């Protein structure tokens, strides 16, 4: 058994590059998904029924589709419509669009729970809708949702492992290559599991730091 772990250690470069790719993929897509969520959420809260309904359809629809199927559609399905991406772009695109729906829903939940007074005060001061959203609604929203965004971040890290099926060299893919090259399945995958665990603990630690900042600002 120790020998197996030594084999994995000798391949640490591969495993660490997998870890780096998982991190890059998760962080990039989380940032883009959050940005997209911020753009989508005013639509979700729109007073115009058609816009709100279209947004709701997108958000609910995404949340009912398994991520792996969505990734398959982006990578294997879209080329038959003439849209061809390599595995990195497909992976990033799939992770981003899929999670944007979750981010939008998270933001909407917090928006509904926000006190009405500052928003009404803002509009009484003649803030335009855009200014109102950017200056009054969004900042406390982002601080309030940070724990839930943290959970979603963990979800994104775990979803990124599915991208191993489109041969994206992330952490699970790296562990698979080590296992198939040296036949050390236990050591290879346990190492990957522990690295995932470390990543998630890191995210949780980050969330508690942001939580303390939010508490201090209150």
């Amino acid at each position, binding site marked *: 058994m120790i020998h197996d772990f030594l084999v994995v250690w000798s391949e640490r470069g591969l495993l660490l590059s997998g870890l780096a790719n998982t991190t890059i993929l998760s962080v990039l897509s989380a940032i883009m998904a959050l940005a997209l969520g911020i753009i989508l959420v005013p639509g979700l809260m729109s007073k115009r029924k058609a816009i709100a309904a279209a947004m709701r359809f997108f958000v*609910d*629809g995404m*949340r*009912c*589709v*398994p*991520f*792996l*199927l969505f990734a*398959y*559609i982006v990578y*294997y*399905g*879209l080329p*038959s*419509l003439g849209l061809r991406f390599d595995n990195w772009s497909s992976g990033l695109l799939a992770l981003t669009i899929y999670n944007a729906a979750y981010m939008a829903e998270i933001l909407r939940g917090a928006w509904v729970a926000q006190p009405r007074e500052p928003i009404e005060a803002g509009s009484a001061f003649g803030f335009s809708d855009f200014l109102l959203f950017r200056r009054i609604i969004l900042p406390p929203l982002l601080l309030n949702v940070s724990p839930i965004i943290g959970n979603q971040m*963990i979800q994104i*890290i*775990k*979803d*990124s*492992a*599915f991208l*191993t*099926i489109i041969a994206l060299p992330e*952490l*699970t893919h790296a*562990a*698979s290559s080590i*296992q198939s090259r040296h*036949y050390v*399945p*236990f050591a290879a*995958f*346990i190492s*990957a*599991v*522990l690295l*995932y*665990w470390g*990543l*998630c*603990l890191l995210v949780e630690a980050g969330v508690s730091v942001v939580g303390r900042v939010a508490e201090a600002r209150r």
Partner: protein
Amino acid sequence: MSLNDVLAILQGALATVTLSAIGILIGLPIGLGLALIRWARVPVLSGIVAVYVSVLRATPLVTLLLLLFFALPNIGIPLGPISAAILALTMNTSAFNCEVWRSSLVNFPKDQYEAAQSFGMQAGQRFRRIILPQIIHDSLPGLVNEMSLLIKVTPVLAVVGVVDITRAAVRIGAQTYEPLPPFLVAVAIYAPIVYALVALQRFIEKRRAAAEAST
């Protein structure tokens, strides 16, 4: 894509639903058991469970599945794709269920527990008659939510060769050189299943809120 292909995907759906149901049915009581170990602060075991839950909640199902599928036969435990799938689903969902059960246990009103004690109820009786019915009620929305999350990760089972919805769709896509239609059929099967669970969860929560408002 022919009618036969659609039927093949539907047959895959049967496998997906059966495996998910088995995972859920085994995962629910195991999750409760784990939650009880932590709640009762059983020495040593409680710490082990805490680490188990923390690690499993951070582990992607693909990674867990590959670990079980390749590593267990390696240490002399023969394991087919179906057993690996059930084991992985059960381990995954029991960890999440444990947290749902545990939060209702932690929030369980102490006075009721003490009242039962002062009536001379045995520990087992207290649990069965007083605690269990109420924590089932409390945990239900969280558990249903967990079920919908579980269904959404089941396409992973195709990776080790379980012929589920996804594998059937991939195979048809490869045969017909048109991957998009079978994937859309697969989505059309998945979405209503997940949506039904999400709607069930919303329905329970709404009914609870209405019942609370009327009292």
